[in-house]
């Protein structure tokens, strides 16, 4: 009887929960979504499933597309040279209270003072500039100079947009990294 009831119960359960079963299965496969997206509803979860079922795509730098036309990326070592020069001039001019530095100047200088690893930005640019012939963009060049990579694997890990050109770029990149390693400032 219980079986019957059980069966009946089962069948009624099945029919009432039929459409939801597939939903439950779907959620189980992608339970990671629930943790990360509790604020959002179930809408769009199908789209998210397709992106999470493969490994999540590495973030790619798209600076060149986002920068306005009259703007150019700078390497941290180049920025340091410029900002340090301005600071030295301001030390002379600071007696004039009408001359002001922007609020963010000190923080900007602090950022590059610590982070840069090359002392001679002109040499770094000379070494990296030839990579442009192989399709490396200005912003990719700046990121390479800023992260001070020790190997080409590190370069491809930090700049995933270059992975597609691995075959063409590996050799000139190795050469450039070898020259850059001689320029690194001592800790």
């Amino acid at each position, binding site marked *: 009887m219980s079986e019957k009831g059980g069966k009946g119960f089962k069948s009624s359960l099945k029919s009432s929960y039929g459409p939801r079963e597939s939903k439950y299965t779907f959620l189980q496969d992608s339970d990671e979504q629930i*943790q*990360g997206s509790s604020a959002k509803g179930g809408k769009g979860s199908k789209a998210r499933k397709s992106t999470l079922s493969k490994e999540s795509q*590495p*973030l*790619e*730098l*798209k*600076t060149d597309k*986002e*920068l*306005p036309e*009259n*703007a*150019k*990326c*700078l*390497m*941290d070592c*180049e*920025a340091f040279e*410029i*900002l340090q020069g*301005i600071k030295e001039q301001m030390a002379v001019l600071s007696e004039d209270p*009408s*001359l*002001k*530095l*922007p*609020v*963010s*100047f000190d*923080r*900007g200088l*602090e*950022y*590059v003072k*610590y*982070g840069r690893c090359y002392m001679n930005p002109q040499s770094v640019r000379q070494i990296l500039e030839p990579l442009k012939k192989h399709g490396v963009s200005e*912003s990719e060049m*700046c*990121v390479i100079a*800023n*992260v001070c990579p020790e190997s080409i*694997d*590190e370069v491809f*890990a*930090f700049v*995933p*947009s270059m992975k597609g050109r691995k075959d063409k770029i590996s050799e000139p990149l190795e050469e450039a990294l070898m020259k850059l390693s001689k320029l690194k400032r001592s800790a």
Partner: protein
Amino acid sequence: MFIKVKLPWNVMIPAEAMDPNGLMIQRAVLIRLLDAFASKKATKDLGYFIALKNLEEIGEGRIRETTGEIVFPVVFSGITFKMFKGEIVHGVVRQVHKSGVFLRCGPCENVYLSQYKMPDYDYVVQGNPLFMNQNMSRIQIGSTVRFIVLDIQWKEAEKEFIALASLEGNNLGPF
């Protein structure tokens, strides 16, 4: 990432600030320009305004009939700082919470690194709260951490950016 940008602006000089002999125009323009640049904290497109590099040219001044001010069109180059999605940058930890840490990256004070984006790091309290991994590598107040920028958002009212960070990837973390 630092950006060098060439910008055309209009600099207004009140009539009373003009030298009667008209000799100190460049100085007056430069001071006003520096003042205007310094008070502009940040913009969505260019990021935080860091420094004025060169005053490239000063155009012909035009008198504003209503106010008597003289408007000089100028072109100058400036340095700004902006984080981009996917960029590898570094920041200094300024607050530690159980759910994650807040970092300062250059002029941006609001970079959030969630605990879920710190693989293998656990929250511990050793006197001060910090995150630590099995290799005893610590993320605590004052630590410098290399991270990837997951996303940035511009806050128009505060003229500031907020950013999300992640340590998911090789060679990311405290250094």
